Protein backbone atom coordinates (compact mmCIF):
# COMPACT_ATOMS: atom_id res chain seq x y z
CA UNK A 1 0.00 0.00 0.00
CA UNK A 2 1.28 3.42 -0.96
CA UNK A 3 1.90 5.66 1.99
CA UNK A 4 1.69 9.00 0.24
CA UNK A 5 -0.91 11.27 1.76
CA UNK A 6 -4.21 11.26 -0.08
CA UNK A 7 -5.95 14.56 -0.37
CA UNK A 8 -9.09 16.03 -1.84
CA UNK A 9 -8.24 18.83 -4.18
CA UNK A 10 -10.56 21.31 -5.86
CA UNK A 11 -9.23 21.59 -9.38
CA UNK A 12 -10.04 23.87 -12.28
CA UNK A 13 -10.71 22.38 -15.66
CA UNK A 14 -7.96 23.59 -17.99
CA UNK A 15 -9.09 21.65 -20.99
CA UNK A 16 -11.77 19.16 -21.96
CA UNK A 17 -11.47 17.67 -25.40
CA UNK A 18 -12.97 14.79 -27.32
CA UNK A 19 -10.22 12.60 -28.80
CA UNK A 20 -12.19 9.74 -30.33
CA UNK A 21 -15.63 8.18 -30.20
CA UNK A 22 -16.90 8.60 -26.63
CA UNK A 23 -13.34 9.30 -25.54
CA UNK A 24 -12.38 12.49 -23.74
CA UNK A 25 -9.25 14.07 -22.36
CA UNK A 26 -9.72 16.11 -19.22
CA UNK A 27 -6.87 18.34 -18.11
CA UNK A 28 -7.08 19.64 -14.56
CA UNK A 29 -5.07 22.15 -12.68
CA UNK A 30 -3.65 20.36 -9.65
CA UNK A 31 -0.86 21.19 -7.26
CA UNK A 32 -0.71 18.34 -4.78
CA UNK A 33 -1.95 15.32 -6.63
CA UNK A 34 0.00 16.12 -9.77
CA UNK A 35 3.21 16.24 -7.76
CA UNK A 36 2.56 13.06 -5.80
CA UNK A 37 0.97 10.69 -8.29
CA UNK A 38 2.95 7.85 -9.82
CA UNK A 39 2.11 5.73 -12.87
CA UNK A 40 -0.65 3.20 -12.21
CA UNK A 41 -2.25 5.18 -9.45
CA UNK A 42 -5.73 6.55 -9.85
CA UNK A 43 -7.90 9.42 -8.67
CA UNK A 44 -11.51 9.60 -7.60
CA UNK A 45 -13.56 12.27 -9.31
CA UNK A 46 -16.72 13.76 -7.88
CA UNK A 47 -19.32 13.99 -10.56
CA UNK A 48 -20.08 17.63 -10.92
CA UNK A 49 -23.60 18.61 -10.13
CA UNK A 50 -25.22 21.46 -8.33
CA UNK A 51 -27.72 19.02 -6.87
CA UNK A 52 -26.68 17.44 -3.59
CA UNK A 53 -29.56 15.01 -3.89
CA UNK A 54 -27.75 13.16 -6.62
CA UNK A 55 -25.24 11.89 -4.04
CA UNK A 56 -23.28 9.92 -6.53
CA UNK A 57 -20.31 7.79 -5.65
CA UNK A 58 -17.00 9.13 -6.87
CA UNK A 59 -15.71 7.72 -10.14
CA UNK A 60 -12.22 6.18 -10.35
CA UNK A 61 -9.86 7.08 -13.22
CA UNK A 62 -6.25 6.26 -13.82
CA UNK A 63 -3.77 9.13 -13.92
CA UNK A 64 -3.20 9.55 -17.64
CA UNK A 65 -0.42 12.06 -17.29
CA UNK A 66 1.02 14.51 -14.79
CA UNK A 67 2.85 17.74 -15.42
CA UNK A 68 3.71 20.70 -13.28
CA UNK A 69 0.38 21.67 -11.69
CA UNK A 70 -1.39 19.58 -14.26
CA UNK A 71 -3.27 16.32 -14.03
CA UNK A 72 -4.67 14.53 -17.07
CA UNK A 73 -7.51 12.03 -17.21
CA UNK A 74 -8.42 10.07 -20.31
CA UNK A 75 -11.89 8.62 -20.09
CA UNK A 76 -14.58 6.87 -22.00
CA UNK A 77 -18.25 7.72 -21.70
CA UNK A 78 -19.97 4.72 -20.14
CA UNK A 79 -22.95 5.83 -18.05
CA UNK A 80 -24.38 8.83 -16.33
CA UNK A 81 -21.26 9.80 -14.44
CA UNK A 82 -18.90 9.95 -17.38
CA UNK A 83 -21.68 11.42 -19.46
CA UNK A 84 -22.02 14.29 -17.00
CA UNK A 85 -18.26 14.79 -17.14
CA UNK A 86 -18.38 15.58 -20.84
CA UNK A 87 -20.15 18.82 -20.08
CA UNK A 88 -17.25 20.07 -17.98
CA UNK A 89 -15.89 23.28 -19.47
CA UNK A 90 -12.76 25.32 -18.92
CA UNK A 91 -12.93 27.02 -15.55
CA UNK A 92 -15.37 24.56 -13.97
CA UNK A 93 -14.34 23.17 -10.60
CA UNK A 94 -13.87 19.47 -10.03
CA UNK A 95 -13.23 17.66 -6.76
CA UNK A 96 -10.43 15.15 -7.15
CA UNK A 97 -9.28 12.70 -4.49
CA UNK A 98 -5.88 11.12 -4.84
CA UNK A 99 -3.46 9.76 -5.47
CA UNK A 100 -4.98 6.35 -4.77
CA UNK A 101 -3.71 2.81 -5.09
CA UNK A 102 -0.40 1.33 -6.10
CA UNK A 103 1.92 2.09 -8.96
CA UNK A 104 3.45 -0.07 -11.65
CA UNK A 105 6.98 -1.06 -10.70
CA UNK A 106 9.99 1.01 -11.63
CA UNK A 107 11.99 -1.15 -13.96
CA UNK A 108 15.31 -0.50 -15.61
CA UNK A 109 17.25 -1.70 -18.63
CA UNK A 110 14.54 -3.99 -19.81
CA UNK A 111 12.71 -4.73 -22.98
CA UNK A 112 9.20 -3.88 -21.87
CA UNK A 113 5.89 -4.40 -23.60
CA UNK A 114 3.28 -1.90 -22.48
CA UNK A 115 -0.12 -2.88 -23.74
CA UNK A 116 -3.46 -1.21 -23.20
CA UNK A 117 -6.84 -2.49 -24.25
CA UNK A 118 -9.39 0.22 -24.92
CA UNK A 119 -9.41 2.76 -22.12
CA UNK A 120 -6.77 0.61 -20.42
CA UNK A 121 -4.34 2.83 -22.26
CA UNK A 122 -5.15 5.71 -19.90
CA UNK A 123 -2.65 5.04 -17.06
CA UNK A 124 -0.03 3.53 -19.39
CA UNK A 125 0.75 6.80 -21.08
CA UNK A 126 2.07 8.22 -17.82
CA UNK A 127 3.95 4.99 -17.24
CA UNK A 128 5.64 5.13 -20.63
CA UNK A 129 6.82 8.67 -20.04
CA UNK A 130 8.45 7.64 -16.80
CA UNK A 131 10.04 4.42 -18.00
CA UNK A 132 11.19 5.33 -21.49
CA UNK A 133 14.55 6.77 -20.49
CA UNK A 134 15.88 3.59 -18.91
CA UNK A 135 14.10 0.91 -20.85
CA UNK A 136 13.46 -0.26 -24.37
CA UNK A 137 9.71 -0.05 -24.70
CA UNK A 138 7.16 -1.27 -27.18
CA UNK A 139 3.77 0.25 -26.58
CA UNK A 140 0.55 -1.00 -28.13
CA UNK A 141 -2.92 0.43 -27.86
CA UNK A 142 -5.53 -2.09 -28.90
CA UNK A 143 -8.97 -0.82 -29.87
CA UNK A 144 -11.96 -2.66 -31.28
CA UNK A 145 -13.09 -0.28 -34.00
CA UNK A 146 -11.50 2.44 -36.10
CA UNK A 147 -13.57 5.20 -34.55
CA UNK A 148 -11.92 4.47 -31.20
CA UNK A 149 -8.45 5.26 -32.53
CA UNK A 150 -6.90 8.06 -30.56
CA UNK A 151 -4.82 10.40 -32.70
CA UNK A 152 -1.69 10.16 -30.55
CA UNK A 153 0.72 12.95 -31.31
CA UNK A 154 3.56 10.76 -30.00
CA UNK A 155 4.92 8.29 -32.49
CA UNK A 156 5.81 5.63 -29.93
CA UNK A 157 2.28 4.32 -29.50
CA UNK A 158 1.30 1.73 -32.08
CA UNK A 159 -2.44 1.44 -32.41
CA UNK A 160 -3.90 -1.93 -33.27
CA UNK A 161 -7.45 -1.84 -34.62
CA UNK A 162 -9.31 -5.14 -34.29
CA UNK A 163 -11.86 -4.48 -37.00
CA UNK A 164 -9.09 -3.69 -39.49
CA UNK A 165 -6.18 -5.90 -38.51
CA UNK A 166 -7.94 -8.73 -36.66
CA UNK A 167 -8.15 -9.38 -32.94
CA UNK A 168 -4.66 -8.92 -31.55
CA UNK A 169 -4.08 -10.27 -28.10
CA UNK A 170 -4.78 -13.97 -27.81
CA UNK A 171 -3.35 -15.06 -31.12
CA UNK A 172 -0.35 -12.85 -31.46
CA UNK A 173 1.03 -12.12 -28.05
CA UNK A 174 3.07 -15.32 -27.74
CA UNK A 175 4.77 -14.74 -31.07
CA UNK A 176 5.28 -11.14 -30.26
CA UNK A 177 7.01 -11.81 -26.94
CA UNK A 178 9.41 -14.15 -28.66
CA UNK A 179 10.07 -12.05 -31.71
CA UNK A 180 10.66 -8.88 -29.74
CA UNK A 181 12.42 -10.63 -26.85
CA UNK A 182 10.11 -9.00 -24.32
CA UNK A 183 11.30 -9.32 -20.71
CA UNK A 184 8.42 -7.69 -18.86
CA UNK A 185 4.82 -6.79 -19.64
CA UNK A 186 2.76 -3.97 -18.15
CA UNK A 187 -0.87 -4.02 -19.14
CA UNK A 188 -4.25 -2.56 -18.45
CA UNK A 189 -7.56 -3.46 -20.05
CA UNK A 190 -10.53 -5.82 -19.89
CA UNK A 191 -10.19 -8.89 -17.65
CA UNK A 192 -10.18 -11.49 -20.47
CA UNK A 193 -7.35 -9.62 -22.15
CA UNK A 194 -5.40 -9.31 -18.89
CA UNK A 195 -5.85 -13.00 -18.28
CA UNK A 196 -4.66 -13.91 -21.74
CA UNK A 197 -1.59 -11.71 -21.33
CA UNK A 198 -0.85 -13.25 -17.96
CA UNK A 199 -0.99 -16.73 -19.46
CA UNK A 200 1.30 -15.74 -22.28
CA UNK A 201 3.79 -14.22 -19.85
CA UNK A 202 3.82 -17.35 -17.72
CA UNK A 203 4.27 -19.51 -20.79
CA UNK A 204 7.18 -17.34 -21.90
CA UNK A 205 8.65 -17.30 -18.42
CA UNK A 206 8.55 -13.54 -18.10
CA UNK A 207 6.91 -11.25 -15.56
CA UNK A 208 3.79 -9.20 -16.08
CA UNK A 209 1.94 -6.52 -14.15
CA UNK A 210 -1.71 -5.85 -14.81
CA UNK A 211 -3.96 -3.04 -13.69
CA UNK A 212 -7.49 -4.16 -12.85
CA UNK A 213 -10.87 -2.61 -12.25
CA UNK A 214 -13.65 -3.26 -9.77
CA UNK A 215 -16.77 -1.48 -8.59
CA UNK A 216 -15.70 0.88 -5.84
CA UNK A 217 -17.49 2.82 -3.16
CA UNK A 218 -14.62 4.55 -1.34
CA UNK A 219 -11.34 4.10 -3.25
CA UNK A 220 -9.20 4.08 -0.12
CA UNK A 221 -9.68 0.75 1.57
CA UNK A 222 -12.63 1.44 3.84
CA UNK A 223 -15.63 -0.26 2.25
CA UNK A 224 -14.20 -3.64 1.16
CA UNK A 225 -16.33 -3.36 -1.94
CA UNK A 226 -13.65 -3.63 -4.62
CA UNK A 227 -12.20 -7.07 -4.01
CA UNK A 228 -10.95 -9.43 -6.68
CA UNK A 229 -10.01 -13.01 -6.21
CA UNK A 230 -6.26 -13.70 -6.11
CA UNK A 231 -4.23 -16.75 -5.27
CA UNK A 232 -4.01 -15.36 -1.74
CA UNK A 233 -7.73 -14.70 -1.37
CA UNK A 234 -9.62 -11.51 -1.93
CA UNK A 235 -7.56 -8.38 -2.40
CA UNK A 236 -8.78 -4.81 -2.62
CA UNK A 237 -8.29 -3.26 -6.03
CA UNK A 238 -8.17 0.21 -4.51
CA UNK A 239 -5.34 -0.26 -2.01
CA UNK A 240 -3.75 -3.64 -2.81
CA UNK A 241 -4.00 -2.73 -6.50
CA UNK A 242 -5.04 -1.58 -9.01
CA UNK A 243 -1.67 -2.90 -10.22
CA UNK A 244 -1.08 -6.57 -9.45
CA UNK A 245 1.57 -9.06 -10.46
CA UNK A 246 -0.20 -11.20 -13.01
CA UNK A 247 1.16 -14.32 -11.32
CA UNK A 248 -0.60 -13.41 -8.07
CA UNK A 249 -3.91 -13.65 -9.82
CA UNK A 250 -3.80 -16.28 -12.54
Amino acid sequence: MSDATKIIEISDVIKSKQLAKDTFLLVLNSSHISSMATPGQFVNISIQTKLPSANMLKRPFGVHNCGKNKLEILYKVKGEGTNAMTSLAVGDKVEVMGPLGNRFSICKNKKVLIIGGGMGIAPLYFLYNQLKEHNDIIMIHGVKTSDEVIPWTESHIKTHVDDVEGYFVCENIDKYIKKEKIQHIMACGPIPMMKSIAESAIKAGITAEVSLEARMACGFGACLGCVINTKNGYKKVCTDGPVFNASDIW
Partner: protein
Amino acid sequence: MAELKTKLGRLELQNPIVTASGTFGYGTEFTDFVDLDRIGAITLKSVTMEAKIGNIPPRIAETPSGMMNSIGLENNGIQDLIKRRLPALEGYKNLKVIANIAGHSIEENIECARILEKEKRVDALELNISCPNVAAGGLSFCFDLPVVEKLISKVRDEYSGPLIVKLSASVPDIVKLAEVSIKAGAEILSLINTIPAMEVDITSRKLFFKRGVAGLSGPAIRPIALKAIYDVASHFKIPIIGIGGVSSIEDVLKFLIIGADAVSIGMMNFINPKIAETLIDELDEYLNTNKLTLAELTLQS
Protein backbone atom coordinates in the same frame (compact mmCIF):
# COMPACT_ATOMS: atom_id res chain seq x y z
CA MET B 1 -19.08 27.02 20.95
CA ALA B 2 -22.35 25.29 21.65
CA GLU B 3 -22.40 22.41 24.11
CA LEU B 4 -22.26 19.26 22.01
CA LYS B 5 -21.59 16.71 24.76
CA THR B 6 -23.97 13.82 24.39
CA LYS B 7 -24.82 11.11 26.87
CA LEU B 8 -26.08 7.85 25.50
CA GLY B 9 -26.74 6.29 28.87
CA ARG B 10 -23.30 5.44 30.19
CA LEU B 11 -21.63 6.22 26.89
CA GLU B 12 -20.51 9.84 26.84
CA LEU B 13 -19.56 11.41 23.55
CA GLN B 14 -17.94 14.79 22.94
CA ASN B 15 -20.57 15.36 20.26
CA PRO B 16 -23.44 13.39 18.74
CA ILE B 17 -21.73 12.62 15.43
CA VAL B 18 -20.84 8.96 14.94
CA THR B 19 -19.67 6.97 11.94
CA ALA B 20 -21.46 3.77 11.02
CA SER B 21 -20.03 0.28 11.01
CA GLY B 22 -18.63 -0.87 7.68
CA THR B 23 -18.50 2.62 6.25
CA PHE B 24 -15.52 3.93 8.18
CA GLY B 25 -13.16 0.98 8.05
CA TYR B 26 -11.13 0.93 11.26
CA GLY B 27 -10.82 4.69 11.43
CA THR B 28 -7.24 4.84 10.22
CA GLU B 29 -8.31 4.76 6.56
CA PHE B 30 -9.73 8.24 7.12
CA THR B 31 -6.85 9.99 8.88
CA ASP B 32 -5.74 11.71 5.69
CA PHE B 33 -9.11 13.42 5.59
CA VAL B 34 -10.42 13.96 9.11
CA ASP B 35 -9.14 14.51 12.60
CA LEU B 36 -10.49 11.37 14.27
CA ASP B 37 -10.10 12.94 17.67
CA ARG B 38 -12.88 15.40 16.91
CA ILE B 39 -15.53 12.78 16.13
CA GLY B 40 -18.01 11.68 18.79
CA ALA B 41 -17.50 8.00 18.12
CA ILE B 42 -16.52 5.71 15.32
CA THR B 43 -18.03 2.28 14.89
CA LEU B 44 -15.60 -0.31 13.63
CA LYS B 45 -16.40 -2.72 10.81
CA SER B 46 -18.27 -5.76 12.09
CA VAL B 47 -15.97 -8.40 13.52
CA THR B 48 -16.34 -12.15 13.89
CA MET B 49 -14.27 -14.70 15.80
CA GLU B 50 -12.47 -16.07 12.78
CA ALA B 51 -11.52 -14.19 9.65
CA LYS B 52 -14.39 -14.08 7.17
CA ILE B 53 -13.73 -13.82 3.47
CA GLY B 54 -17.00 -12.14 2.67
CA ASN B 55 -19.13 -12.42 -0.43
CA ILE B 56 -18.20 -13.07 -4.04
CA PRO B 57 -17.85 -9.81 -5.99
CA PRO B 58 -19.40 -7.65 -7.38
CA ARG B 59 -20.14 -6.17 -3.98
CA ILE B 60 -21.17 -2.63 -4.85
CA ALA B 61 -23.89 -1.16 -7.04
CA GLU B 62 -25.01 2.40 -7.27
CA THR B 63 -28.73 3.23 -7.09
CA PRO B 64 -30.63 6.52 -7.29
CA SER B 65 -29.39 8.54 -4.30
CA GLY B 66 -28.05 5.42 -2.72
CA MET B 67 -25.94 2.33 -3.08
CA MET B 68 -26.23 -1.37 -2.46
CA ASN B 69 -23.56 -3.51 -0.88
CA SER B 70 -22.97 -7.18 -0.49
CA ILE B 71 -19.74 -7.17 1.50
CA GLY B 72 -20.78 -10.10 3.66
CA LEU B 73 -18.96 -9.01 6.80
CA GLU B 74 -15.46 -9.59 5.42
CA ASN B 75 -12.98 -9.10 8.26
CA ASN B 76 -9.75 -10.54 9.59
CA GLY B 77 -11.20 -11.88 12.79
CA ILE B 78 -11.22 -10.61 16.35
CA GLN B 79 -7.54 -11.26 17.11
CA ASP B 80 -6.46 -9.08 14.22
CA LEU B 81 -8.81 -6.37 15.48
CA ILE B 82 -7.17 -6.51 18.88
CA LYS B 83 -3.61 -6.75 17.66
CA ARG B 84 -3.66 -4.35 14.75
CA ARG B 85 -6.76 -2.18 14.72
CA LEU B 86 -7.36 -1.14 18.31
CA PRO B 87 -3.71 -0.19 19.04
CA ALA B 88 -3.77 2.14 16.02
CA LEU B 89 -6.55 4.09 17.73
CA GLU B 90 -4.75 4.50 21.07
CA GLY B 91 -3.67 8.05 20.42
CA TYR B 92 -7.17 9.50 20.08
CA LYS B 93 -8.15 10.50 23.60
CA ASN B 94 -11.43 12.26 22.82
CA LEU B 95 -12.74 9.71 20.38
CA LYS B 96 -14.97 6.91 21.55
CA VAL B 97 -14.58 3.58 19.79
CA ILE B 98 -17.55 1.30 19.31
CA ALA B 99 -16.72 -2.27 18.38
CA ASN B 100 -19.38 -4.02 16.32
CA ILE B 101 -19.79 -7.79 16.57
CA ALA B 102 -21.69 -9.94 14.11
CA GLY B 103 -21.25 -13.57 15.01
CA HIS B 104 -23.26 -16.07 13.00
CA SER B 105 -24.51 -17.75 16.18
CA ILE B 106 -25.39 -16.83 19.73
CA GLU B 107 -22.24 -18.58 20.88
CA GLU B 108 -19.96 -16.68 18.54
CA ASN B 109 -21.38 -13.38 19.72
CA ILE B 110 -20.89 -14.41 23.34
CA GLU B 111 -17.27 -15.26 22.65
CA CYS B 112 -16.67 -11.96 20.87
CA ALA B 113 -18.24 -10.03 23.74
CA ARG B 114 -16.16 -11.91 26.29
CA ILE B 115 -12.98 -11.08 24.44
CA LEU B 116 -13.81 -7.43 23.86
CA GLU B 117 -14.80 -7.00 27.50
CA LYS B 118 -11.07 -6.91 28.23
CA GLU B 119 -10.18 -4.31 25.62
CA LYS B 120 -9.76 -0.83 27.07
CA ARG B 121 -9.86 0.86 23.65
CA VAL B 122 -13.39 -0.43 23.14
CA ASP B 123 -15.73 2.10 24.74
CA ALA B 124 -18.96 0.37 23.78
CA LEU B 125 -20.12 -2.76 22.05
CA GLU B 126 -22.59 -2.78 19.18
CA LEU B 127 -24.33 -6.06 18.54
CA ASN B 128 -25.23 -6.29 14.85
CA ILE B 129 -28.33 -8.45 14.49
CA SER B 130 -29.44 -6.83 11.26
CA CYS B 131 -26.95 -7.45 8.44
CA PRO B 132 -28.83 -8.60 5.31
CA ASN B 133 -25.69 -9.90 3.61
CA VAL B 134 -25.00 -13.17 5.38
CA ALA B 135 -26.62 -16.60 5.27
CA ALA B 136 -26.41 -17.34 9.01
CA GLY B 137 -27.08 -14.85 11.77
CA GLY B 138 -27.40 -11.24 10.64
CA LEU B 139 -30.87 -10.07 9.78
CA SER B 140 -32.33 -13.53 10.31
CA PHE B 141 -31.85 -13.00 14.07
CA CYS B 142 -34.33 -10.11 13.96
CA PHE B 143 -37.11 -12.39 12.78
CA ASP B 144 -36.93 -14.60 15.81
CA LEU B 145 -37.73 -12.63 18.93
CA PRO B 146 -36.93 -15.39 21.43
CA VAL B 147 -33.50 -15.72 19.84
CA VAL B 148 -33.03 -11.93 19.97
CA GLU B 149 -33.86 -12.02 23.64
CA LYS B 150 -31.50 -14.85 24.40
CA LEU B 151 -28.71 -13.44 22.27
CA ILE B 152 -28.81 -10.01 23.85
CA SER B 153 -29.10 -11.23 27.43
CA LYS B 154 -26.19 -13.62 26.97
CA VAL B 155 -24.01 -10.92 25.45
CA ARG B 156 -25.16 -8.62 28.24
CA ASP B 157 -23.86 -11.15 30.74
CA GLU B 158 -20.42 -11.11 29.16
CA TYR B 159 -19.96 -7.44 28.47
CA SER B 160 -20.10 -4.89 31.26
CA GLY B 161 -19.72 -1.73 29.19
CA PRO B 162 -22.42 0.14 27.26
CA LEU B 163 -24.25 -2.30 25.01
CA ILE B 164 -25.74 -1.10 21.75
CA VAL B 165 -28.03 -3.28 19.67
CA LYS B 166 -28.30 -2.49 15.98
CA LEU B 167 -31.73 -3.00 14.46
CA SER B 168 -33.17 -3.28 11.00
CA ALA B 169 -36.30 -1.52 9.78
CA SER B 170 -37.09 -4.50 7.58
CA VAL B 171 -38.76 -6.55 10.28
CA PRO B 172 -42.38 -7.41 10.98
CA ASP B 173 -42.61 -5.03 13.97
CA ILE B 174 -39.75 -2.77 14.95
CA VAL B 175 -41.44 -1.58 18.14
CA LYS B 176 -41.79 -5.15 19.35
CA LEU B 177 -38.18 -5.87 18.38
CA ALA B 178 -37.02 -2.80 20.28
CA GLU B 179 -39.06 -3.82 23.29
CA VAL B 180 -37.55 -7.28 23.37
CA SER B 181 -34.06 -5.83 22.90
CA ILE B 182 -34.47 -3.39 25.75
CA LYS B 183 -35.89 -6.03 28.07
CA ALA B 184 -32.98 -8.30 27.28
CA GLY B 185 -30.45 -5.66 28.25
CA ALA B 186 -29.78 -3.31 25.33
CA GLU B 187 -28.78 0.09 26.74
CA ILE B 188 -28.69 1.92 23.43
CA LEU B 189 -30.38 1.10 20.14
CA SER B 190 -28.89 1.96 16.79
CA LEU B 191 -31.03 1.97 13.66
CA ILE B 192 -31.31 1.37 10.79
CA ASN B 193 -29.09 -1.11 9.04
CA THR B 194 -29.25 -1.42 5.25
CA ILE B 195 -32.54 -2.50 3.67
CA PRO B 196 -32.70 -5.82 1.80
CA ALA B 197 -33.03 -5.03 -1.89
CA MET B 198 -32.12 -6.36 -5.33
CA GLU B 199 -30.54 -5.30 -8.58
CA VAL B 200 -30.61 -6.82 -12.06
CA ASP B 201 -27.89 -6.83 -14.68
CA ILE B 202 -29.71 -6.22 -17.94
CA THR B 203 -27.01 -7.50 -20.25
CA SER B 204 -26.63 -10.92 -18.64
CA ARG B 205 -30.26 -10.94 -17.43
CA LYS B 206 -29.00 -12.16 -14.08
CA LEU B 207 -29.28 -10.84 -10.57
CA PHE B 208 -26.43 -8.35 -10.16
CA PHE B 209 -25.30 -9.74 -6.81
CA LYS B 210 -24.41 -13.40 -6.47
CA ARG B 211 -26.50 -13.71 -3.33
CA GLY B 212 -29.40 -11.93 -5.02
CA VAL B 213 -30.15 -9.78 -2.02
CA ALA B 214 -27.91 -6.88 -1.01
CA GLY B 215 -28.30 -4.00 1.42
CA LEU B 216 -29.61 -0.61 0.30
CA SER B 217 -28.29 2.49 2.03
CA GLY B 218 -27.83 6.19 1.49
CA PRO B 219 -30.08 9.24 1.23
CA ALA B 220 -32.68 7.19 -0.66
CA ILE B 221 -33.63 5.37 2.56
CA ARG B 222 -33.56 8.39 4.86
CA PRO B 223 -37.37 8.83 5.09
CA ILE B 224 -37.66 5.15 6.04
CA ALA B 225 -34.98 5.54 8.71
CA LEU B 226 -36.74 8.60 10.14
CA LYS B 227 -39.94 6.63 10.55
CA ALA B 228 -38.16 3.72 12.22
CA ILE B 229 -36.46 6.07 14.69
CA TYR B 230 -39.75 7.82 15.38
CA ASP B 231 -41.50 4.53 16.00
CA VAL B 232 -38.92 3.44 18.54
CA ALA B 233 -38.34 6.84 20.15
CA SER B 234 -42.03 7.48 20.65
CA HIS B 235 -42.41 4.21 22.55
CA PHE B 236 -39.26 3.96 24.66
CA LYS B 237 -36.94 6.25 26.56
CA ILE B 238 -33.81 4.40 25.43
CA PRO B 239 -30.94 6.38 23.83
CA ILE B 240 -30.95 6.02 20.06
CA ILE B 241 -28.20 6.32 17.48
CA GLY B 242 -29.98 7.29 14.26
CA ILE B 243 -28.56 5.94 11.01
CA GLY B 244 -29.72 6.05 7.42
CA GLY B 245 -28.81 8.36 4.60
CA VAL B 246 -27.52 11.29 6.63
CA SER B 247 -25.84 13.64 4.17
CA SER B 248 -26.22 17.18 5.49
CA ILE B 249 -26.68 19.26 8.61
CA GLU B 250 -30.41 19.37 7.83
CA ASP B 251 -30.46 15.60 8.04
CA VAL B 252 -28.60 15.62 11.35
CA LEU B 253 -31.18 18.00 12.73
CA LYS B 254 -34.08 15.91 11.40
CA PHE B 255 -32.70 12.79 13.09
CA LEU B 256 -32.09 14.55 16.39
CA ILE B 257 -35.50 16.18 16.33
CA ILE B 258 -37.42 13.01 15.52
CA GLY B 259 -35.86 11.13 18.40
CA ALA B 260 -32.23 10.17 17.86
CA ASP B 261 -29.71 11.18 20.52
CA ALA B 262 -26.73 10.74 18.22
CA VAL B 263 -26.50 10.50 14.45
CA SER B 264 -24.35 8.06 12.56
CA ILE B 265 -22.99 8.60 9.05
CA GLY B 266 -22.80 5.67 6.65
CA MET B 267 -22.49 5.74 2.88
CA MET B 268 -21.76 9.45 2.76
CA ASN B 269 -18.33 8.80 4.29
CA PHE B 270 -17.39 7.35 0.91
CA ILE B 271 -18.63 10.32 -1.07
CA ASN B 272 -17.20 12.88 1.32
CA PRO B 273 -14.70 11.39 3.78
CA LYS B 274 -14.54 14.70 5.65
CA ILE B 275 -18.26 14.73 6.30
CA ALA B 276 -18.24 13.77 10.00
CA GLU B 277 -16.02 16.70 10.92
CA THR B 278 -17.98 19.09 8.70
CA LEU B 279 -21.25 18.10 10.32
CA ILE B 280 -19.85 18.68 13.81
CA ASP B 281 -18.88 22.22 12.83
CA GLU B 282 -22.21 22.86 11.16
CA LEU B 283 -24.16 21.54 14.12
CA ASP B 284 -22.21 23.82 16.42
CA GLU B 285 -22.91 26.75 14.13
CA TYR B 286 -26.60 25.93 13.83
CA LEU B 287 -27.09 25.76 17.57
CA ASN B 288 -25.22 29.03 18.06
CA THR B 289 -27.03 30.89 15.32
CA ASN B 290 -30.42 29.69 16.44
CA LYS B 291 -29.64 29.96 20.15
CA LEU B 292 -30.69 26.40 20.71
CA THR B 293 -29.31 23.56 22.80
CA LEU B 294 -29.10 19.93 21.76
CA ALA B 295 -31.77 19.13 24.34
CA GLU B 296 -34.15 21.49 22.63
CA LEU B 297 -33.96 19.61 19.36
CA THR B 298 -37.08 17.60 20.09
CA LEU B 299 -40.30 17.07 18.26
CA GLN B 300 -42.90 19.79 18.83
CA SER B 301 -46.54 18.87 18.67
